[in-house]
């Protein structure tokens, strides 16, 4: 009997320990970032976020080009990807909810999530960049090919699986009797989807989009390869730029002096905070909109 109780206590201790460990880990991350970036933090203060110039030679570091690069590529990617993902989800849960075709598409979506980002980068570089270049030539702007727009497109494809599979999951959870009630009033399938299913699963779909956005914000490899790695403020969605993640990846090995390293780490801290903030705001919105 005593043994049983002890075992139970041990089990509880392990559970508590694991959960607590996670909190320690997050704080650990946070403290390391702050300590390592303290030089840059004290030197540039708030000007680090608003500064438009990133000049390692001059020792002048402002992260606004990267902050805007990250936000623009991610949100643009989400805007492009969201309608497509949602339509895939509706298609899979309401039109082809079983059978061969359903499985093929579902597997394809899952496969998309499993492709390493470097492969996406390669694809973007060799397939998408020439196309964008053609397009830029045809509308008479500088044909970089690489840039913010190209990155947003590749990101939009990379994040499809997140929105699509979560949306599919929540859409298929809409109770049959609620859908039947709508059909029995003479609604068409389209009307049921638009006025019953989507409102019902709205907050879940939003959560899926949020997860996708989080993925886009932090995506490094693919973006680094196709964004053009320019450290000046982007002037249009076609101009080359840099994101927070890509500038770290690109310049970490070149950072020679301590201010430079510390500034890059501060970018890491900033990315960490931006991602956390967007997640918290998103969770708050979900909480506010769930009514049943």
């Amino acid at each position, binding site marked *: 009997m005593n043994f049983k109780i002890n075992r139970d206590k041990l089990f509880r201790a392990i559970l508590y320990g694991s959960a607590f460990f996670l909190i320690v880990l997050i704080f650990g991350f946070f403290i390391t970032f702050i300590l390592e970036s303290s030089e840059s933090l004290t030197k540039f203060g708030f000007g680090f976020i608003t500064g438009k110039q990133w000049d390692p030679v001059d020792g002048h570091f402002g992260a606004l080009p990267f902050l805007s690069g990250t936000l623009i590529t991610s949100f643009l990617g989400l805007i492009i990807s969201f309608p497509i993902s949602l339509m895939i989800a509706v298609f899979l849960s309401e039109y082809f909810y079983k059978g061969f075709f359903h499985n093929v598409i579902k597997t394809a979506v899952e496969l998309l999530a499993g492709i390493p980002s470097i492969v996406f980068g390669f694809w973007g570089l060799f397939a998408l960049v020439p196309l964008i270049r053609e397009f830029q030539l045809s509308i008479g702007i500088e044909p970089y090919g690489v840039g913010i727009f190209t990155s947003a497109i590749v990101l939009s494809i990379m994040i499809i699986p997140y929105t699509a599979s979560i949306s599919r999951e929540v859409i298929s959870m809409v109770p049959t009797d*609620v859908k*039947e*009630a709508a059909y029995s009033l*003479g609604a068409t399938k389209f*009307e049921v989807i638009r006025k019953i299913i989507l409102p019902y699963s709205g907050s879940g779909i939003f959560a899926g989009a949020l997860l996708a956005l989080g993925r886009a914000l932090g995506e490094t490899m693919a973006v680094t390869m196709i964004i053009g790695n320019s450290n000046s403020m982007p002037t249009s969605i076609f101009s080359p730029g840099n994101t927070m993640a890509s500038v770290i990846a690109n310049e970490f090995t070149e950072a020679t002096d301590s201010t430079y390293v510390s500034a890059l780490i501060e970018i890491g801290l900033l990315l960490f905070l931006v991602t956390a903030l967007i997640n918290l705001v998103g969770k708050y919105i979900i909480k506010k909109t769930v*009514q*049943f």
Partner: protein
Amino acid sequence: MENQVLNIQNFSFYYGETQVLKDINLSIEKNRVTAIMGPSGCGKTTLIRAINRMHELTENTRTEGIIKLYNEDIFELDPITVRRKIGMVFQKPNPFPTMNIYDNVIAGYNLNGIKLKKSDKDIIVEDSLRKSALWDEVKDNLYKKGTFLSGGQQQRLCIARALAMKPEILLLDEPTSALDPKATSHIEELIKELRSYVTMLIVTHNMGQAARISNDAVFLYLGELVEHGKTKKLFTTPQDKRTEEYLTGKFG
């Protein structure tokens, strides 16, 4: 017959290879309540779900024969029209959880994209809620979510929602099976009162309920229509031995 709202002729229903309903003939008169009785699995629900073509939402179903609403075969109309003319109330109360009470009642119009003036909507909502005896209980909370109501109130809300479309027929699929006795008797009273507005077909497990609220009764057994007649007559002097056995509790 002029009073005939619904006329089911030689109607058979197949689920895959299995025949669930066998050559049903049944005519329903205006402003009467017809109870459909029978043991589990006899095809009661299948029959009423075929009347508003809800069975088409299920794959692998097939029908034979015709169902006439007045003079039109419902299988020659489009299902949308059929469902607007034939309302349905389900076993479990299923108000739309995303909508408030007002929007639930007017949902049929909103779903179908029918634009109405606010004043017309107000009239329909009040009228439907009064008919379903819910108005006095909810008139001060019309913009609250329908899911906060009690089970019985939710079911009356669903009845109001169906009535708002001004259907020719209201199909009720065991509407009280998920409710407590008090709410059940409330719904039964309501059905009796609604007779003057709408023709009703009610599937019920409960013989007492059928006796209390229906004018006519139908006894289905193993997919066959065994007997159809005035409720009183069917309960007191059943013509078929199977009806008698069912009514006296030998099976079912």
